[in-house]
């Protein structure tokens, strides 16, 4: 049983490694064929032909970080929902379906309130 489990994930690992090998092989092949002559204007960052002012890592406004926070909350929520979703049929079969349903509705309602709060606070608005 446990052997089967590790075997399954070993196959997944092989697929991931194959992705790396595929890119590695292509890059290696290209290295053998393609010319390599760095230097000159090629080394400058491409900014539509205008000479770049300052570096590419200037301070910039990361507007999206608040979205990242919201995402984190909802993604953790999804982790909680999945086991419930897979087992709802089982709960129903032992006569506890309505109980499981109400539990999850409370959970989702709290989250929706959070989203509503974020919207009312103007977090999702673009200034």
């Amino acid at each position, binding site marked *: 049983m446990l052997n089967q489990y590790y075997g399954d994930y070993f196959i997944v690992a092989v697929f991931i490694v194959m992705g790396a090998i595929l890119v590695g092989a292509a890059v290696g092949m290209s290295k053998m064929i393609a010319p390599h002559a760095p230097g000159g204007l090629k080394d400058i*960052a491409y900014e539509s032909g205008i000479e770049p002012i300052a570096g590419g890592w200037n301070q910039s406004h990361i507007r999206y970080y608040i979205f990242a926070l919201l995402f984190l909350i909802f993604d953790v929520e999804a982790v909680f929902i999945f086991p419930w*979703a897979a087992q709802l049929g089982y709960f129903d079969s032992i006569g506890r379906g309505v109980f499981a349903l109400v539990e999850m509705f409370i959970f989702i309602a709290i989250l929706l309130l959070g989203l509503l709060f974020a919207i009312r606070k103007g977090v999702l608005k673009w200034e």
Partner: protein
Amino acid sequence: MSFLLELGIKVILMLAVVLTAALVTIYAELKAGSHMQTRIGPYYAGGKWGWAQPLADGAKFIQKEDLAPAKADRTVFGFAPYVVMMSTLAVFAVIPMGPDIVATNLDLGVYFILAISSLSVLGVLMAGWSSANKYSLIGGLRAAAQLIAYELPLVLAVVAVVVQAGTMSMNGIVEAQQATLFTIGGVEVALPYILSGQIIGFTIFMIAAVAELSRIPFDMPIAESELTMGYLTEYSGIRFTMFFLGEYASLVALSAIATTLYLGGYAVPFLPESMENFAGPGIFLIKVSFLVFLIIWIRWTWPRLREDQLQSMAWRWLIPLALFNIALISVFKVVL
């Protein structure tokens, strides 16, 4: 058959299918785009209909110099395409093309797919940051914000499928769609999920999938008229090709996931189960190509959304709608 031999055959077969499908999709995009917009498109390479155009492009790209800006963070810059390709190929490990034609049937199939496919956000962010280019940085940030915003409706739409099927295994979901729904005059009828309650979920999934692929109407991260090429601006030669190939492979991957979850995967109603290993891959690929064509069609027909419209669409409409969809499906599951 020994485990390793079987594994080798599976990996090689799946790689062949995925790469061929990606190349065919690139060709289909060139051709469909040129027909929809009354342009000429590829017609020379390969002699007839320009069928060899993707191969010719690949052969050209492989000969090009692999440039990186002098100020770039070379390690991260070089590693970004690996991350994208690895996360894309791993998805195909659990996609079933027949009852037994699957690399591995994980119990957590769908969950695994959602987890591993969101890793490609990392590759995009790495590419955007390491290029030391303002276009790339803005493109990478936009892409990250967009990918995480549309990850949520995608995940929540899948939850509704898991509720209805009662399993997270991809094979299990396909089998659940073959369960008898009702009987008319002694004939048992089983319908794929798109026809038995998941039409809202399917719509949300497809919208979110197009956004996850950063394709028009959600292509702000690589908006040519604003950001040159977004996070891909500094990429050239073979590394650009890898991003490009990865993009089309994930287009195929998302269509394959949608096929499995909503269109009944390798099964069609009234096909006897003994035929499924034989006819399954063909049926599966026909359904996948239909969805691929749908996504291509959307790209060549619609204009681009604005960045704030994109965010508010995900957060204000799709996520509440997806939560409502979960509630609806779970109530049906308990009541019926």
